[in-house]
């Protein structure tokens, strides 16, 4: 299934990419598994998304936990803690 992934702010700059479409096996339909796929790229990906790093995930524009399920064509965003206001 295809998952659209967006990156914002410091993470967008570190990864050098703002948006991509990943094809995941249907068996990997969870936020934590998507993150494993990204970490497997190594380098900045492994470092910035390591357990204990301070980042947030939204699924279809709602804040989501690591065990949130994913479905085909979902939009997942990965970003640092927000600092508006």
């Amino acid at each position, binding site marked *: 299934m295809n998952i659209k992934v967006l990156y914002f702010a410091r993470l967008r700059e570190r990864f050098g990419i703002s948006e991509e479409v990943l094809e995941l096996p249907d068996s990997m339909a969870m936020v934590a598994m998507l993150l494993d796929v990204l970490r497997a790229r190594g380098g900045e990906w492994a470092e910035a998304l390591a357990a204990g790093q301070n980042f947030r995930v939204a699924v279809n524009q709602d*804040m989501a936990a690591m065990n949130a399920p994913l479905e085909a064509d979902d939009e997942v965003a990965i970003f*640092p*803690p927000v600092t*508006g*206001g």
Partner: protein
Amino acid sequence: MKISVQEADFDAGVEISALRAGNPQIGAVASFIGLVRDMNDGSRVAAMTLEHYPAMTHKALSAIVAEAEARWALLGCTVIHRVGALFPTDQIVLVAVASSHRADAFAACEFIMDYLKTQAPFWKKERTPEGERWVEPRVTDEQAQARWAE
């Protein structure tokens, strides 16, 4: 409920007047304006860029206002948040809340700001003499949000 995410500046007086216009049940309007300071974490700030996640921003702000409306008896609410390039003394955000009584208006206005600070997808990048830097989240903002949990 009026929610706007925009590059343009806003006129707080006009927004507050519009919020309360024509409703004689309104006895209280509490409002907050956030502004760009020329100093942050010990460095001079020459300018700032506010990035956001357009598809999510309006949805997140609407959810925060809806939660405030569920907790307090409100008669109107306006939230305006700017994005793009901003400079010291520029307005960043306006939250204005109307109610019959002041306790509800104050509480809802502060609640919305506390949640906006930790839940709405905005990120600030500052330009300082030492270069550009992303603003770090503040522990005090997390704490301010946490106190509203039952």
